[in-house]
């Protein structure tokens, strides 16, 4: 029972400390991200890679090729 009480106190304490710290860090992280974004005047993180490594240009080339192939096939 005393072991349980100890566990309950420490447990609830840790949960609160953890989530409180998370609130602060999250706020800090968001502030940082948003400041960097506005500093860069724009769109935030733009991911370069895509799922299959195809870039827009290549997609366009392939699409054009397929289109041509179909229309003439």
């Amino acid at each position: 029972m005393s072991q349980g009480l100890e566990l309950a106190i420490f447990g609830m304490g840790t949960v609160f400390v953890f989530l409180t710290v998370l609130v602060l860090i999250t706020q800090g992280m968001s502030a940082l991200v948003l400041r960097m974004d506005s500093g860069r005047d724009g769109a935030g993180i733009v991911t370069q890679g895509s799922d299959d490594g195809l870039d827009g240009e290549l997609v366009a080339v392939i699409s054009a090729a397929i289109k041509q192939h179909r229309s003439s096939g």
Partner: protein
Amino acid sequence: MSQLTELWHTTGLYQISFPQFIMILIGLLLLYLAIKKGFEPLLLIPIGFGGILSNIPGVDIAVGTGILHQFYVMGLETGVFPLLIFMGVGAMTDFGPLLANPKTLLLGAAAQFGIFTTLLGALALTEFGVFDFTLQQAAAIGIIGGADGPTAIYVAGLLAPEILGAIAVAAYSYMALVPLIQPPIMRALTSETERQITMTQLRDVAQAEKIFFPLVLLILVALVVPSAAPLLGMFCFGNLMKECGVVTRLSETAQNSLINIVTILLGLSVGSKLVADQFLVASTLGILLLGIVAFSIGTATGVLMAKLMNLFSSQKINPLIGAAGVSAVPMAARVANKVGMEANPNNFLLMHAMGPNVAGVIGSAVAAGILIQFAGG
């Protein structure tokens, strides 16, 4: 003639025991609740069906080389199934509302009171000789109050596998019953005026914030409660796959075929713990009772925390969303929305309640880590 007798002895009708019969009825009841009443069917159908299979006499299904026991050994003894589910849930979770209003994380903390008070309750009942729960069992029972299925199963599998069946059934049943359990408590603890509080629109959240959040969370877990790292690590991994935008095919598999396969196998594995001699014991009743107490306390402390926060902040939050801090995603958030609309039909709390709702997942995973560390091994 003696051969006919022998044949008769191979039938289930001859071999079935009364407890097995009861358990088959309970399995059918779970299926009824899932199919007809919509009680968390994704889990309760496999669990209920697995429970029936496990109580068929004269054949090894839930023991030895039986298929359900094999699934159990493969996925629950190892923790693999709940962790993969957690990864999939992570890949389905949108932290946007939480990031727009990070203070709601505190509501997800407060609602975990239910876990620890129930743990104490279980130990007190043992003290008074009503039940006989070990510290491990008490911890596993408390986690029902976390209102998070995979977390409950993960903790029970590690700390008290002998009561895993009862805990899973309790957790999913009460999650399904959230629309019945929570509203009276929410109404009792709030005034009409409080329930009418409208909240300001949530700000837009940048993609970068969503990418950084699971990493920030992971690092904090690593530094503060490493014992919660398996659960929250897999959760954050799933979420990062979703948000980073460059591994769509992995994220979609984690959210679909993988989580579905694991859900089927996990449900059947849990069903294998519904064998009569493990489930039909007095402690199961205690678990069911304590479970609903845990839910109720979590709901209450979530609401009270919201009221407490309003004392110190100019920007009021509607205390109803505190109840969503227990997790039970997304049911609890919907309940908060519904009760809020009763007081003010134009008050859409759903998005606001999603913040504490996912915060509750984090909160109970942290609590789970602590329980495992103190009561485990």
